[in-house]
């Protein structure tokens, strides 16, 4: 392992040193993608040779692929040559204060109970003071450092821990995996890197929230988390506040590696701009997330609450390689208006006595389409494999749709695979009952929906869960009555 020097502290200081506001002038490549674009990105980031070679191979592979269209999604074609693939953060262009931010956005922040300083950060207000809100992070920095935990931006990891990056990058999601994964590998700008040394239990939830330079990592983000033998980490991605971004296409990759007896808990709240009530605008979110339980008795849990984006294409998966390893997927996907979500998971049982649990809760309102797509694959050698899947859909109104595609491929006849599914409508009786108790429609809907999702919500870390509850209610505002 390399020197664990690049910690949160140095990161924070660097940003202050560089002014963050003044020095980083816009520095943008012209739109379009070719091998030179890839070379330019790598050069701007001052990357070692292995990174450039890997990016170029990914680019060449991507050129041979066509965009997949098997998902239950409809959207106007994406012009990949019209996208700008590198743009350094240009914070000067951001609003000068919250007064310049869309009042609707501020209203939502207030409803979610987000402190003022964090609101400024989220809204991209370009002031130094914003950084103070994240200063809580500095109280944790020493602790992480002392424990040998690496938590930094991907770019910093490439500079300071190239051996770890080289060893693990693409080992779970190779650039050959799919169209969007290949694109991400070729042009990804930044992201997060976490390494937990053997036997270390990370004492706090790690969150991009606490890492200021997570701002402007842009549309092609890459995260790599490694839990060495016997290590434990809980990682939080995203936040409940609606995030706006002028980039329509987001194609992120997340790779998790759990070695023997290690455990990774990865929680996401995704609330990118979903477009307006008429389906105009909104983010296309094509994400590849995969974890590999590489060691025996390892465990990876994904929990996601997806309420944002115009289009969500996302299947957080677990490769259960180690014997007795455990994979979990807990998902709430809420779609309203004209949103479309095609999401689910893949559990691949390779090791013996591997176990997976899938709990998916889909909520559709308005004209939205919500699809669960899951694959449980059991290889011949996976004796004692066990999967439990539960998919529930809740429909609000008559114009929305819920679809369930649970695929099962088992080569081991003794594997136990259980599947339960249900589709229900939000009931008038429940709404009337709650209204009779003085609870208004918005709160009643929020209560019923949160009740429907309880199994998933309770797997979220406490403070995240509180915000996520409010978020579900807000996302459904005006969908009934």
């Amino acid at each position, binding site marked *: 392992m390399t020197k664990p020097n690049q910690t949160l502290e140095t990161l924070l200081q660097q940003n202050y040193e560089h002014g963050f506001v003044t020095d980083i002038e816009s520095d943008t490549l012209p739109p379009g993608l070719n091998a030179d674009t890839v070379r330019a990105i790598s050069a701007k980031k001052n990357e070692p040779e292995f990174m450039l070679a890997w990016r170029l191979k990914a680019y060449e592979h991507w050129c041979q692929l066509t965009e997949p269209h098997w998902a239950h999604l409809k959207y106007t074609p994406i012009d990949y040559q019209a996208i700008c693939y590198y743009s350094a953060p240009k914070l000067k262009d951001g609003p000068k204060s919250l007064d310049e931010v869309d009042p609707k956005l501020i209203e939502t922040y207030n409803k979610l109970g987000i402190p003022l300083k964090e609101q400024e950060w989220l809204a991209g207000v370009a002031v130094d003071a914003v950084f103070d809100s994240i200063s809580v992070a500095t109280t944790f920095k020493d602790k992480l450092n002392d424990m040998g935990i690496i938590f930094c931006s991907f770019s910093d990891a490439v500079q300071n821990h190239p051996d770890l990056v080289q060893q693990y990058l693409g080992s779970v999601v190779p650039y050959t995996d799919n169209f969007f994964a290949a694109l991400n590998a070729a042009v990804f700008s930044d992201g997060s890197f976490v390494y937990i040394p053997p036997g270390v239990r990370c004492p706090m939830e790690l969150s991009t929230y606490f890492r200021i330079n997570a701002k402007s990592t842009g549309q092609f983000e890459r995260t790599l988390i490694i839990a060495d033998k016997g290590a434990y980490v809980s990682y939080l991605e995203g936040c409940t506040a609606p995030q706006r971004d002028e980039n329509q296409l987001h194609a992120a990759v997340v790779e998790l590696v759990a070695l023997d007896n290690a455990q990774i808990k990865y929680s996401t709240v995704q609330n990118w701009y979903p477009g307006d009530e008429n389906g105009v605008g909104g983010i296309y979110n094509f994400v590849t997330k995969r974890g590999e339980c590489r060691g025996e008795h390892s465990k990876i849990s994904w929990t996601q609450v997806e309420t944002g984006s115009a289009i969500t294409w996302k299947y957080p998966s677990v490769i259960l390689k180690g014997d007795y390893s455990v994979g979990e997927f807990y998902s709430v996907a809420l779609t309203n208006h004209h949103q479309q979500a095609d999401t689910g998971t893949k559990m691949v049982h390779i090791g013996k006595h591997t176990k997976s649990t899938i709990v998916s809760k889909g909520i559709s309102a308005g004209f939205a389409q919500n699809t669960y797509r899951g694959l449980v694959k059991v290889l011949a050698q996976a004796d004692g494999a066990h999967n439990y899947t539960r998919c529930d859909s809740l429909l609000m109104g008559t114009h929305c749709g819920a679809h369930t595609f649970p695929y099962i491929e088992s080569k081991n006849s003794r594997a136990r695979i259980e599947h339960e599914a249900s589709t229900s409508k939000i009931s008038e*009786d429940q709404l009337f009952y709650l209204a009779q108790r*003085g609870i208004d429609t918005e709160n009643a809907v929020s209560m019923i929906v949160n009740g429907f999702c*309880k199994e998933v919500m309770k797997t979220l870390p406490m403070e995240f869960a509180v915000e996520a509850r409010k978020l579900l209610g807000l996302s459904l505002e005006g969908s009934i009555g």
Partner: protein
Amino acid sequence: MLIINKLQVSIQNKAILKGIDLKIKPGEVHAIMGPNGSGKSTLANVLSGREEYDITAGTLHYQGVDLAPLTPDERAHLGLFLSFQYPVEIPGVSNLYLLKSALNAKRKHQGLDEIDAIDFLSVVREKMKLLQMDDSYLYRDVNTGFSGGEKKRNEILQLLLLEPSLCILDETDSGLDIDALRIVAKGINLMRNENRSILLITHYQRLLDYIKPDVVHVLSDGKMIAEGDYQLAAVLEAEGYEPFIQKKAGD
């Protein structure tokens, strides 16, 4: 005071209530009895503001306010409470959360702050003790998996907590065992005071032995066909509805 004037109600173009007049003054307890399907629950639902019903004629006023344009939650904030004939299950929502949300919704309407978590627990526990309900009901999902009698007791718990001024109890006694009936009746009697109006819908005289009504009404086929004091329940118990229906038809 509740004033119902010549109320006619239909559902899916089928007339259910065919001209109802009813006045309940503060402090009074009225009972409505009547055959199955006569429209008792319909009246309770219409008073509470359930949407599916069409008011085709007549008016509803409570404390001088016309109820017709108000939503169910607005009526609840006026002090109207319905103990449901069939309480609704809400999976995943704890009883505690519902009780607290309901109480806070009321407090918000009154311009009060949310109740302190500890104060809330002590108030709820006091009411639960009165109803001889175990603490565990607080942490179970609302009515989910509750027995028929447990659901009814849970309705009365909400009533005691919310302290409404107009209580409509739709067959709260049905499904309660003998001891439970006594306990629930005791709870309701404690609520009785000069400001509160209570409307009991029931099939059995037994409940009225515990909670003595000022007036008993008989509803049949959407019309009030008889009215009397507490004694009327005993007559009905002995003779059934038929003689009253015949007599009305003969009028």
